[in-house]
């Protein structure tokens, strides 16, 4: 529904803003904005919030979201036009989206869409039924291809009605009969429940879990020192062409110094040399069979020793 809805009558700000400037909406919005280091990051979520509150996104709501997220109105308008799920015009109570992409296509999506157009008497390009109950839209992949052809009723996947509820049983795709059952379910619901209860469009927000730092931008803090300093890995010994002992290893970039240690007769390791943290090998003279290890040191401290290598012949 990303075309320009020039025919839609845009309500005035005075009509829209009181619905958005309620304590419930504002507190949720403030929590959302705190999640991002810049307010602009919350723009998509703010638009969702406005759409959830109003049922669709009039221009006044887009301007409201722009103001709250500190972006220009035209930026927010462009964003709202780019993403297909923002409704730039009101839809019926049951928004039926049928997937027409390849997996659904080969399972007969076109048949179902043609049937749906006939049953509801509207075009599948976003047509609304006169009673205001249904909007029918053919869409691209909905990400449930194992249930092709698949449909969404508002935000729920539905390919059948099971035990009086919309359901998408494993491997069950939409057919014309199942589509009729779902439409009948919607009509029955419209009689039983006069207006559709609001649904949290952000899937249940987290407020006051304690894990969310309070101030704007706080979430972009740099992680403090948390992990142990990195030891050298894969210490191994070999011989250079001229017969010298060559030790090689891999190490983390933050290492500043390596302490090369050899095992003495008493069984204790004693320092032999200090090497730069950039070194990846050491060449020198050592007796065959000598046990050596490296202890890496970084600004954080000394790491646990590396593996023990034996000098080869």
């Amino acid at each position, binding site marked *: 529904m990303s075309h320009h809805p020039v025919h839609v009558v845009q309500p005035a700000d005075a009509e829209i803003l009181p619905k958005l400037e309620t304590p419930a909406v504002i507190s949720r919005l403030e929590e959302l904005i705190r999640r991002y280091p810049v307010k602009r990051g919350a723009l*998509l979520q703010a638009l969702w919030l406005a759409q959830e509150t109003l049922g669709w996104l009039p221009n006044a709501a887009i301007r409201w979201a722009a103001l709250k997220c500190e972006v220009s109105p035209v930026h927010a308008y462009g964003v709202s036009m780019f993403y297909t799920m923002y409704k730039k015009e009101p839809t019926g109570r049951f928004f039926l989206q049928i997937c027409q992409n390849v997996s659904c296509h080969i399972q007969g999506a076109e048949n179902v869409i043609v049937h749906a157009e006939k049953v509801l008497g509207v075009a599948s390009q976003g047509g609304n039924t006169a009673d205001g109950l249904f909007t029918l839209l053919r869409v*691209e*992949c909905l990400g449930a291809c*194992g249930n092709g052809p698949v449909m969404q009723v508002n935000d729920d996947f539905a390919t059948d009605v099971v035990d009086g509820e919309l359901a998408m049983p494993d491997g069950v795709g939409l057919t014309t009969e199942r589509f009729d059952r779902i439409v009948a379910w919607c009509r029955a619901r419209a009689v039983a429940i006069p207006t559709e209860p609001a649904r949290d469009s952000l899937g249940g927000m987290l407020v006051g879990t304690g894990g969310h730092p309070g101030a704007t931008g706080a*979430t972009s803090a740099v992680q403090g020192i*948390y992990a142990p300093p990195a030891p050298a890995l894969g210490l191994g010994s070999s011989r250079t062409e001229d017969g010298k002992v060559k030790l090689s290893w891999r190490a983390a970039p933050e290492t500043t110094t390596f302490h090369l240690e050899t095992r003495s007769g008493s069984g204790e390791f004693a320092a032999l040399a200090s090497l730069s943290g950039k070194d990846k090998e050491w060449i020198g003279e050592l007796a065959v069979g000598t046990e050596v290890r490296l202890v890496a040191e970084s600004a954080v401290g000394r790491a646990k020793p590396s593996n023990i290598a034996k000098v080869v012949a």
Partner: protein
Amino acid sequence: MATLTVTQNFGKGAQDIGVYKSLGGYSSLSSRLFDLSQFELIDLVMRSGLRGRGGAGFPTGMKWSFVPRNSGKPVYLVVNADEGEPGTFKDHRLMLEDPHRLIEGMIICGWALGVRTAYIYVRGEFLPAIEALNAAVKQAYEAGLLGKNIAGTSFCMDIYVHRGAGAYICGEETALINSLEGFKGQPRLKPPFPAVSGAFASPTCVNNVETLMALPWILENGPEAYAKMGTPKSPGTKVFSVSGDVKRPGVYEAPLGTPLMEILEGKDYCQGVVGTLKGVIPGGSSSPALTAEEAKQANLDYEALAGLKTMLGSGAVVAFNTTRSVVGMLASLTRFYAHESCGQCTPCREGTGYADRILKTVVSGHGRDGDLEQILDLAANFTSSTICPLGAADSAPIINFIGKFRSEFDAVVAKNPDRGEPRLSKNFRPGAFWE
């Protein structure tokens, strides 16, 4: 049944943290993880051979090693759950069935990279999955596994679920970052790569859902056990989404290198093809299709499929039988790419739309001589002249479908009695596309 590393909790009610813990969940958040330095953990993931499961198959440990340390900026982890590739639905199921495994995988990645804030970018259509994730994140906070001082350590990490709003292109990592920042989801030029300058101009790691969910198993069983599965160059297991003409479509996990026909016909998997197999799309809509003959020789791993001039992609297998029109399938795919082109680069914006309009006339019985050559010529031109690979993702199936099933396309064109008439350019005016 082969070892499962990602889907083992399916159908067990693991959405609840208690059940997840009783199945061995969150056991990696112990000295097993917290005794490892960043360097050791990245090395461990490298040794496991784990490759990105989102499509490109880039080694995960190497991707992590590109994230600079001590840059003075925060490091972000962004989970790519914007699963939109037609044929792919594994991440959807994974998030619904086992959201805590994703959180555990994110904490492991966060430890390796020093992440303070992580986002899960979920495509807007997956509201039930978003609800499952939010519920799981809430439980994890309450259990002290997220937020400040995770599991009693000095490590702090927050996870936020970010709802997308319907744009396939946001599955491309730089478009996803733009979308997270409150922009249109248009891909950025690389370099700089996200590892150096991604979300909010800070180092950013973007990983697929399935990639992160493989980490708890790797940490528990060791990288060597993971590397032993699959093939030497494609180690481990992969989750395949199988749809189309099979008896039991669904999400199946199998070691990489499993023969394609085993997935389609094996009793643990799809249990057979409906009708006579005509061809298989092995790795999502942007991977070239295999004919039935080729499918019989194909193994599902990165190298074997590359050898057959196609790709494993996201592991989305779409099987189609001899009653299905390849022309209709290609028209459906091309319409999709024309619809989802972000409009930033001219070759893709114009080229996909042009190809779509020609294919629509062919499908509707108004194809003319030379139309197929025209599409092929277009496809060859919008394949690599753009910022992101969306154009290439459309041109690959166009070149492949017309190349392999040419007779079907010719048969459709041949039905038009006026096929010899010259094509008038007015038939392809852009207005014809924007219905």
